[in-house]
């Protein structure tokens, strides 16, 4: 695992040794925790949000979504901002920057009025933090003057971004809530208010499970529960989408983004970089596995860059953006017909069932030999490839043109399966 490329990247003018950050959350709540994380290799930390408001937490406060044998596909968290005294948090941030000057420390703040935002900005600037992140997005605050209720309102976002930017010289980042249809609006408002960067996404308002005994959401807190933030692998697709849409907006395309949502591996992190992030933030995977996961992120990304010949992380930022286009612009004049490898086939018939029940009845089933074959009805949807339990058993076999005009097959790039 020794492979280490130069993963450094500049973010809002601050040099970061790598793009891997802890997000402002339970994983970055004290000096000792962050110290251990830095030593494990994290490039920086968004310290757990501080405020004048001190959180009083419930017990229990987490739940997770499991799919068959895989737990933590999604995770629900009811914790709010820091429950420690503001002074202790400022002290911890000061000591961290003093003891780890090369690591990047972002102070995350949350106020409930212009005055509070301004005051918090001044206080954290004095700790020596490198940047300030405005938390406009925690979905489980017990005060409605705070959190995602603010992030859904572009006017408040603009106003508070301005209050913070005016009170500090540090770069200001606005952290967005995904509990909204169009993230561009509050993001543009934040930039208008003086923010330099955008972080997205915070957690998604959720009810993960309903308990059948107490007939309330999970986790059950003395017979009751609340809607709160959802994170983990399940939310990566949503995070990627918000980032890509913001980066494709003319007013936001040059804004540096910090990607958050379902990142567990170097590959997840890279995907956020490819849709335009300069760094990524991780919480849920650390809650599940610990700080140590960063070593495989560093190593894995280094191997990828070596394989692909990238010298700098910066060179990969946004590479996927030109290829994510509106549905109406997709080429639709061909279909890719599949073929089934009868030697690899285990005869389970899953492709046959799904093709019949959910697609185009394009697979025939040989009861005697337990083998499926593709008939003339195939439209190239590749549902069969998605359900087949055997790797590479069903493969794209030929391109069929819908119209007379053609381009040469070499020009068709396609892929169905994410491995």
């Amino acid at each position, binding site marked *: 695992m020794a492979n280490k490329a130069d993963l450094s990247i500049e973010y809002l003018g601050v040099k970061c040794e790598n793009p891997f950050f802890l997000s402002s959350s339970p994983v970055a709540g004290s000096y000792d925790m962050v110290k251990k994380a830095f030593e494990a290799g994290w490039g920086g930390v968004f310290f757990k949000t501080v405020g004048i408001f001190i959180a009083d937490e419930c017990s229990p406060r987490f739940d997770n979504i499991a799919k*068959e*044998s895989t737990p933590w596909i999604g995770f629900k968290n009811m914790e709010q901002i820091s429950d420690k005294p503001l002074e202790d948090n400022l002290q911890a941030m000061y000591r961290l920057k003093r003891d780890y000057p090369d690591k990047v420390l972002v102070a995350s703040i949350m106020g409930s009025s212009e005055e509070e935002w301004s005051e918090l900005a001044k206080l954290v600037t004095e700790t020596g933090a490198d940047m300030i992140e405005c938390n406009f997005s925690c979905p489980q605050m017990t005060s409605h003057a705070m959190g995602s209720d603010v992030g859904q309102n572009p006017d408040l976002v603009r106003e508070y971004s301005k209050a913070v930017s005016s009170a500090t010289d540090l770069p200001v980042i606005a952290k967005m809530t995904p509990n909204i249809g169009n993230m561009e609006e509050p993001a543009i408002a934040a930039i208008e208010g003086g923010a330099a960067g955008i972080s997205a996404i915070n957690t998604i308002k959720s009810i993960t499970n309903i308990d059948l005994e107490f007939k309330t959401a999970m986790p059950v807190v003395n017979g009751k529960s609340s809607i709160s933030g959802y994170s983990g692998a399940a939310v990566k697709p949503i995070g990627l989408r918000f980032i890509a849409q913001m980066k494709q907006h003319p007013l936001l395309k040059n804004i540096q983004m910090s990607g958050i949502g379902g990142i567990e591996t170097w590959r997840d992190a890279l995907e956020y970089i490819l849709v335009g992030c300069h760094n990524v933030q991780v919480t849920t995977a650390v809650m599940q596995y610990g700080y140590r996961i960063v070593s495989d992120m560093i190593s894995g990304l280094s191997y990828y860059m070596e394989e692909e010949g990238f010298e700098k992380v910066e060179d990969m930022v946004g590479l996927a953006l030109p290829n994510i286009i509106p549905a109406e612009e997709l080429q639709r004049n061909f279909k890719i017909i599949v073929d089934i490898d009868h030697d690899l086939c*285990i005869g389970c018939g*899953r492709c046959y069932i799904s093709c019949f029940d959910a697609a185009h009845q394009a697979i025939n*089933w040989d009861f005697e030999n*337990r083998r499926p074959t593709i008939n003339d009805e195939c439209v190239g949807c590749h549902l069969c490839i998605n359900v087949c339990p055997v790797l590479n058993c069903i493969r794209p076999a030929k391109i069929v043109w819908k119209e007379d005009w053609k381009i040469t097959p070499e020009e068709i790039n396609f892929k169905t399966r994410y491995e």
Partner: protein
Amino acid sequence: MDRGEKRLSKVTAKNQLQGKEIKKGYLDEAVHGYNTRTAMEEAARCVLCYDAPCSKGCPADTKPADFIRSIRFRNFKGAAATIREANALGGCCAKVCPYDRLCEEACSRTGIDRPIQIGKLQAFAVDIEKKFNMKILEAKEATKEKVACIGAGPASLSCASRLAREGYQVTIFESFDKPGGMLTYGIILSRLPQDVVDFDIEKVKELGVKFVFNTKVGQDVTIDDLKEQGYKAFFIGTGLWKPRKIDIPGADLKGVRYAIEFLKEARSSKGEMKVDGNVIVIGGGNVAMDCAATAKLLGAERVTIVYRRTIEEAPADIAEIEYVQSLGISIITKYAPKEILEDDGKVAGLIAAGTDDFSELKLKADMIVFAIGQEAEDMRKIVPAIELNENGTISCDIAKGFTNIEGIFAAGDIVNGGKTVVEAVAQGKSVAESIMKYLSQKEGVN
């Protein structure tokens, strides 16, 4: 801890690492069951086949594909119902079925890595039935004809269950004092705990089936007596209980034992029976493996299995062979017993001849257990005019169970010459259909 024990604990630890979690006590079940989480994990491995081969692989039509899908979609009670409706001895079959030759052999997942552990999932579902005290089967009011089932083993229990559900008045006559037959007397507890047997039988009793114990039909009561009492049809499911013997010098010495009576004594003693010294077991089936494990777990110093064919040819399940090996029992193949050596009227050793006609084996022994199969007792004592095969089994159509005598049916080991529990269950079930048809139409003479 002596070297042997150390080695044994090493083997056990290794097996635990491989997820087999083999235990060593006579009263302990050898394999741990699933909990809801591990059952879901295993069910998630299932590829949920179309026209599933596993279900076709079950002789008793226990529908593994259906109950695994129920588990996968978190309908544990539904899984339990599927099993109980199809198989009156679903709990026992879950423990003793030769899966590697039936449903698991057919499993499509084998094409990717290894089959789904169907038996363990079945046991999990039956545990759910027990935990929730489910009443899955319902019997119609018992207003139909009286039927007598002879023997309280798997074939009879399965047949009786089916008949009782349809409203027949069924009584099982059993010569021993407990029901279950081979399930209760002829299998080691580590493979089949008694509570599993008792639970399945309880389910048969709940259907209104009556049991008469300590009653040997043909001796304590005759078919004619029973006809006088109003029984209209008879089902013979007595099984095979007479040990097969071979005639070699020393075969009648003290210390020569036969498998079923040996296992029965051990089970009846609840593990209190003492075994010591050197024990040799002759045979290569599951019964031989059970005898060897029983001897070892009850205190024998050294246990050796001597089998006349190769290990590949041994009819024992691979899991049972691995289990005895994990207990430190060695299996010597391709030797047949030639002579039992004597010391003071008791067994002192065994001479076995290699099947290569050259090698010879001489082993010290304090006890020799023959586990080379069972034969039929004299069925004419039950029904004087019944037609028998050369080996003493009852001559009849296996699926339909008609004997040469009107109103008398048979199934299980006494017909098929000794096969698996699940086959006895399957035959008992299908012969019940014949009996119902016979009673409703009064047809059925060969």
